[in-house]
């Protein structure tokens, strides 16, 4: 009797530990995915209100974003800058900082890269690209790191300052490419002097997407290792959890804030460099394409986890890739995809509030109880 009871209890314990393990893996995935689905359902309501079929809509999004090899090339090309832009939000967020002005670092990183290409055009290709990458990284690091420093030393709210500084960055970029850095030959679209051919970054063979994609994926993995597997990342997470406790423990909270915001800026700056070196060939107003803002949505969807940024960026890039076909096939305005993304973002913010109230594991335990 007691033996049987012990066995049964042991079996139950084993079952529940398997369920716990599965739950631990799935729990972080469950809420964001549920939020995406909830956003899709709410958006379906909007589509029905304007007399369009949600099924058609989602089929088109699937087809244009992920359905063919061209769709994948389209999606991955759009994902490349978004990966790096999202890291600029995700890294500071682990310290509890909501930095939403990565756009500024992207734009200025691009200008820095274009300037290097203009000032020192004679280097061998690899060195030239390296020089542009360093210039863009340093620019981004100063721009976003400065926001961390303002927060630490002066108590300036980093959300507001980063957003406002993004406008200043765009104005600065416009001033530079229309003034001191303008190529006189760029008549109706003021730009810096085109980069030498050796400084241009090509495509990854076979998939028709520039190398920024590979760099973005590697950066996401490195960020995950940094945050989850190093003492620096551990310290950063403690600061994010409770800054007073971190300070009591003697952790250099200020340095961590500045360091992680600066690192986020490095990635945003690199995103700008790739736009210039792989897409545009010179720095101009097209750099302000809103990647920094889409990066915010992606970082939140990924819950600021470097690895999760990769699928999240690809998902959002797929949405954006489908925008054109949604316009052409369904006759919906271009803002449709933006509204759709907004719905998903709101659902994700709401799901954050529910984080401790819904436990995915309870879905498994129901079986044990009944």
């Amino acid at each position, binding site marked *: 009797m007691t033996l049987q009871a012990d066995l049964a209890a042991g079996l139950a314990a084993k079952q529940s530990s398997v369920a716990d393990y599965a739950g631990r893996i799935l729990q972080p995935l469950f809420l964001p995915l549920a939020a995406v689905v909830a956003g899709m359902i709410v958006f379906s309501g909007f589509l029905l209100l304007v007399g369009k079929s949600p*099924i058609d809509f*989602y089929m088109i999004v699937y087809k244009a974003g992920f359905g063919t090899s061209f769709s994948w090339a389209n999606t991955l090309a759009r994902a490349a800058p978004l990966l790096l832009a999202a890291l600029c939000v995700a890294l500071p967020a682990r310290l509890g900082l909501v930095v939403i002005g990565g756009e500024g670092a992207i734009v200025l990183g691009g200008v820095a890269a274009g300037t290097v290409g203009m000032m020192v055009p004679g280097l061998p290709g690899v060195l030239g690209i390296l020089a542009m990458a360093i210039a863009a990284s340093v620019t981004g690091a100063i721009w976003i790191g400065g926001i961390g420093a303002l927060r630490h030393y002066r108590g300036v709210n980093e959300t507001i300052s980063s957003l406002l500084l993004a406008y200043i960055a765009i104005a600065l970029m416009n001033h530079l490419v229309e003034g001191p850095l303008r190529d006189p030959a760029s008549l*109706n679209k*003021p730009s810096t002097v085109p980069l030498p051919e050796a400084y241009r970054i090509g495509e990854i063979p076979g998939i028709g997407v520039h190398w920024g994609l590979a760099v973005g994926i590697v950066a996401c993995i490195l960020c995950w290792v940094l945050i989850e597997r190093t003492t620096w990342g551990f310290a950063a997470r403690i600061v994010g959890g409770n800054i007073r406790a971190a300070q009591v423990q003697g952790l250099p909270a200020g340095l961590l804030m500045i360091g992680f915001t600066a690192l986020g800026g490095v990635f945003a700056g690199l995103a700008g460099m790739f*736009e210039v070196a792989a897409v545009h060939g010179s720095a*101009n107003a097209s750099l302000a*394409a809103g990647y920094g803002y889409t990066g915010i949505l992606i970082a939140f969807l990924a819950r600021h986890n470097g690895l999760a940024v990769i699928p999240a960026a690809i998902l959002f890039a797929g949405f954006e890739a489908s925008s054109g076909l949604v316009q*052409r096939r369904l006759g919906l305005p271009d803002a449709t995809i933006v509204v759709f993304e907004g719905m998903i973002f709101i659902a994700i913010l709401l799901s954050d509030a529910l984080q401790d109230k819904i436990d995915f594991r309870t879905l498994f335990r129901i079986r044990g109880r009944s």
Partner: protein
Amino acid sequence: MTSFLTPNRRQFLTRTAGLAGLAAAGSALPFGAARAASLTVGFIYVGPKDDYGYNQSHAEGAAAVKAIPGVTVVEEERVPETVDVQKTMESMINFDGASLLFPTSFGYFDPHILALAPKNPKVRFEHCGGLWTADKPKNVGSYFGYIGMGQYLNGVVAGHMTKSKKIGFVAAKPIPQVLLNINSFLLGARSVDPTITCQVIFTGEWSLAVKEAEATNALADQGVDVVTCHVDGPKVVMETGAGRGMYLCGYHANQAPLAPAKYLTGAEWNWAKVYTDMVNTTLKGGAINNFVRGGLAEGFIKMSPLGSAVSEPARKQFESVKAEIIKGGYAVIKGPLKDNKGNVIATQGQSFVETDVALEGMNYLVDGVVGSTS
């Protein structure tokens, strides 16, 4: 404890199964339906196609193309001048079978069209505003119109209608196409009264409604009583200007419906003619020239019908100057002429006719324009 947010397993399964059913039901969609036509033409706009401006003028051209039998038109609006436009063009080629594309924004040309054209040799790329040269791909063409002449005619009417002798211009960026329009507008007005000045305000962006409204109000505050503009969507300038009691000269498209009592005339694109010609040429198997330009005479641009407020003398001079321009060889920029910093632009007897390519590199504001290019 079981609520919608914390479902038990049965509820959870029922709901997900419902979703899966929805997805399965949608698997029979008519993709590729657009391929049936003999020619598919793609139009790409940088802004909304109902902006009462640049993009609307092109969308009106696309609408005319739609009426041609055997032609399917696909359109996409608000496509940024980034990798986005490359993907949109590829998408139109891959998903819609488009073989003639009109990416209409200036910034689509370099590097985006130039990157795609060699990869898609069977597709024709026709770009608005660019300067095609012989070293560019052969399946790329550029076209534009001498719309500065329209702004000159705007200026002629404005010169008659202004009482304060101050006219105003809300401009996006100090680039050659815009500077030519500003200078033409003032010189048109000065052909009526040489004491007239033109105040220009640059907003710095092609589409930035708040700044356009501020600029228009600032012009009104300075006593300007006729305003025109060169931004992507003139709607804000027109409505704000009419609200401040100013007369309006339009640009890009016909903005008369926005303020019929105050609208004098406007310099409009006539892409309907240009695009139907190009599409008909393609349908007949002919080749479109790689470098196409035209003005009032060729029907590339047109003037909005004169508004009811336009006085009789203004009407007369407008018609006679328009007839002169249509004859050809008309020069707006002609000596003696200085820029507003005192540098000589043209000496006595020197002139730049509308077709002169030198005008496409303009970098000055003429004497009488109050404002600066930098």
